[in-house]
């Protein structure tokens, strides 16, 4: 089977093929036409819900070998306009099958629910819902800020919107006021609008083009809505943030955002296609645009930044600017002397919470206080509105009814343009004597396993301890701390060094002994050789015996001259018999004058040499 496809696109009457009958007016009646009888018709409507001012797309698909005349539907309140047609030919086994898609723009005049009758008697009806505002996002008609007054690209309208020259995108800054104080944070909205079909994407966060302001807490998840602006559909992405001024003066700022847009490739006046197809979707379909990255800038917004007044500034003013209310509560209205309480101070309202700080209660005779810690609770992503809670541990030092005094909090209110000092209400806490004090006057309470009294006033918890033990700066056990490990390693190195030194000393001693023994051996052997050469039997055996006495004396830890034949026992080696005979021959030579022949000298020399060598080696 062979399939060959050919697609022809008709975008205007001039480019129409296969009998397209374009309509240029409203409800022109005649729709897409086709001839012949064997054609199937299908129609789809997208989207099925739109806002007033937007358009839906009706696609009429007819397929078959012939052509069929399809009349456009007529519905009161809806305008049907053919904006294009495409045709596809498929060659299947030599037979040509044509598919024709006719695209009709449907624009409502009023809001409501419209039923579009079926294109053919067998086709089901289509339903189009038109909301007054933006039906998909629930935006009210008030959101159509520029309305139908006509928004001119490149010029700023009264609502602060300035479209790019091609009308594809805008960046808009929305602020509640333009006169602010140094340090004051005001919530701002940065909107990036992208015309559907023209603008493709926003490629980054909006950027503040001014060094005189700071932008804080830019929302991570921007809000995305679709709006009709000047009758054209826009997708508007909104970031919320806090804007603060750094120094007093008159300044202006702009925001810019990187956006990818589709740019027309041909001048509009030269393109009949563009004249006919004002709809960007159709322009994209017909390849009349290319993508390009642009930086879209908002119109300049002018601000007057005022300095905070010096007159009337409270001593405890810490830079908080906004509108705040304060209150306090305590973890328990009753406690025992020495037991910690938690005093909480709530600061809620709107303003620059990052500058909201307080030292809370200072230590006095009745209360021992510690450094407060703070936390911030808010559902506002910009953190402009919320509640900051300070928690301060307190310990009552005396029993009785103790009062936690009022705590002041000073801030500058830009609404009243003056400093305000809010005060919390004093709190009263009933403080009972401590467990230690009670023990002196009360009978001993129930004892735990260790004999420590049980604190019955606090759910059976055993009482607090006197904090007199030494403090450490880490919970890591001492033996795992680097300093300690270093110390242990140094000790190990020292011991290793000492052991090595000892071994070297022992080796040196052994070497000296070996050298002395070797020297002695050579001396003895030399003397024996001399006696042998001279035939002096007496000298030979005396020297041989003396040599053996020296090595055995060193081995047996006995003086050499005390070694006799009786000390040469079999355990000293396999030549012990020879050695005993040597001792006997020496005695015989001394006392009987026995003489030896040269071969005997040689044999005994070998015996003595072997023994001496063995003893030195061991």
């Amino acid at each position, binding site marked *: 089977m062979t399939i060959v496809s050919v697609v022809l696109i008709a975008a205007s009457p001039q480019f129409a093929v296969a009998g397209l009958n374009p309509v240029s007016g409203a409800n022109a009646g005649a729709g897409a036409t086709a001839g012949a009888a064997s054609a199937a018709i299908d129609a789809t409507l997208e989207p099925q819900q739109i806002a007033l001012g937007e358009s839906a797309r009706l696609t009429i698909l007819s397929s078959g070998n012939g052509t069929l005349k399809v009349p456009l539907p007529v519905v009161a309140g809806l305008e049907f306009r053919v904006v294009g047609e495409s045709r596809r030919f498929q060659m299947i086994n030599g037979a040509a099958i044509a598919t024709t898609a006719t695209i009709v723009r449907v624009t409502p005049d009023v809001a409501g629910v419209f039923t579009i009758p079926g294109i053919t008697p067998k086709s089901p009806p289509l339903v189009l819902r038109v909301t007054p505002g933006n039906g998909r996002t629930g935006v009210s008609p008030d959101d159509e800020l520029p309305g139908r007054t006509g928004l001119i690209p490149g010029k700023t309208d009264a609502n602060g919107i300035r479209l790019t020259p091609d009308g594809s995108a805008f960046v808009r800054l929305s602020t509640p006021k333009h006169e602010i104080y140094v340090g004051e944070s005001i919530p701002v909205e940065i909107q990036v609008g992208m015309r559907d079909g023209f603008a493709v994407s926003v490629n980054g966060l909006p950027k503040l083009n001014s060094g005189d302001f700071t932008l804080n807490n830019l929302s991570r998840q921007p809000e995305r809505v679709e709006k009709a602006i000047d009758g054209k559909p826009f997708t508007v992405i909104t970031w919320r943030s806090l804007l603060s001024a750094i120094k007093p003066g008159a300044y202006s700022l702009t925001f810019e955002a990187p956006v990818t847009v589709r740019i027309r490739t041909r001048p509009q006046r030269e393109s009949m296609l563009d004249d006919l197809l004002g709809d960007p979707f159709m322009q994209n379909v017909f390849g009349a645009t290319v993508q390009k990255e642009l930086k879209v800038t908002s119109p300049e917004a002018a601000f007057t930044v005022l300095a905070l007044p010096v007159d009337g500034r409270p001593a405890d003013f810490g830079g908080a600017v906004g509108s705040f209310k304060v209150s306090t509560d305590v*973890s328990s209205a009753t406690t025992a002397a020495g037991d910690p309480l938690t005093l909480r101070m709530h600061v809620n309202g709107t303003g620059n919470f990052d500058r909201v700080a307080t030292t809370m209660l200072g230590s006095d005779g009745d209360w021992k206080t510690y450094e407060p810690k703070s936390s911030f609770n808010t559902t506002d992503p910009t953190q402009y509105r919320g509640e900051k809670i300070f928690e301060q541990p307190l310990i009552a030092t005396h029993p009785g009814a103790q009062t936690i005094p009022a705590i002041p909090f000073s801030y500058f209110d830009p609404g009243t343009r003056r400093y305000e000092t809010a005060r919390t209400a004093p709190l009263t806490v009933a403080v009972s004597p401590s467990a230690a004090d009670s023990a002196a006057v009360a009978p001993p309470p129930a004892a735990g396993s260790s004999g420590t009294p049980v604190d019955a006033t606090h759910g059976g918890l055993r009482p607090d301890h006197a904090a007199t*033990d*030494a403090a450490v700066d880490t*919970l890591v056990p001492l*033996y795992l701390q680097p300093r*300690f490990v270093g110390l242990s390693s140094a*000790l190990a190195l020292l011991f290793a*060094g000492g*052991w090595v030194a000892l071994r070297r000393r022992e080796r040196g001693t052994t070497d000296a002994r070996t050298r002395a023994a070797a020297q002695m051996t050579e001396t003895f052997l030399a003397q024996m050789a001399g006696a042998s050469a001279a035939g002096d039997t007496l000298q030979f055996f005396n020297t041989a015996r003396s040599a053996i006495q020296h090595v055995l004396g060193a081995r047996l830890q006995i003086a050499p001259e005390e070694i006799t034949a009786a000390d040469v026992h079999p355990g000293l080696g396999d030549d012990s018999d020879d050695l005993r005979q040597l001792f006997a021959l020496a005695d015989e030579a001394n006392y009987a004058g026995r003489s030896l022949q040269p071969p005997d000298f040689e044999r005994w020399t070998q015996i003595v040499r072997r023994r001496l060598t063995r003893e030195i080696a061991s």
Partner: protein
Amino acid sequence: MTCRAPTLALTLALALALGAGTFAAAQPATPAPPTQPTQPPQPQQRQQPPSYSAAALYNLGNADARAGKPGAAVLNYERARLLDPNDPDLEANLRQVREAAGLAPESRGRFDRFATFAAPRILAWIGLLGFLIAGASLLARQLYPGHRHKLAASAVAGILAVVATLCNAIALWPTLHEAVVVAHSAPVQVAPVLDEEPSFVLPEAETVRVNAVHDGFVLVQTRSGRAGWVPEANLALVVPKH
């Protein structure tokens, strides 16, 4: 010359040990304020390292228990137990808080009880002293062979002291890698990603073993063996990392 080297090593070792002991004794003995260890680092506090004492942590645990914060109470009790493992009051209060939070009671085995018969700080010095004695005895054994039996006994005693310290380290090692659930409940996920359905939930005051940390999530394992990722903010390490 060579005869002097071992003697010099022994002298230096003694000097090092004595110097370290003197340094340790000179550490500040000021008790820490009871709330300092669990406070977040305030800007003005960053210059001073936190300080911990067993009594202050115990008192802080009591305060948290009374304030209805079992997670923080167990955390501070566990920290106090690292410094003073044999405080019966601490054990009793920890047991009570865990029971009140609906958690199973802890049971310490014989080895744990033996290995923690003294505070780690004391055992550290005992171990160092044992190491010193063992090393010196072994060296002296080479120098004075006539006393080798006495010196061998001394070396064995030193080695036993080192073993006691090692046992303490082995017993405490798991605790050094544990964390306590301080949030009201901690959802446990299969993967460390946001918006994932939890596979189970850890109750407050539960003690878990920390196996890994990744991108704001902690891979934990419960004592029953279940494992998963928990948001880091829901946990507090028993031994905080500075």
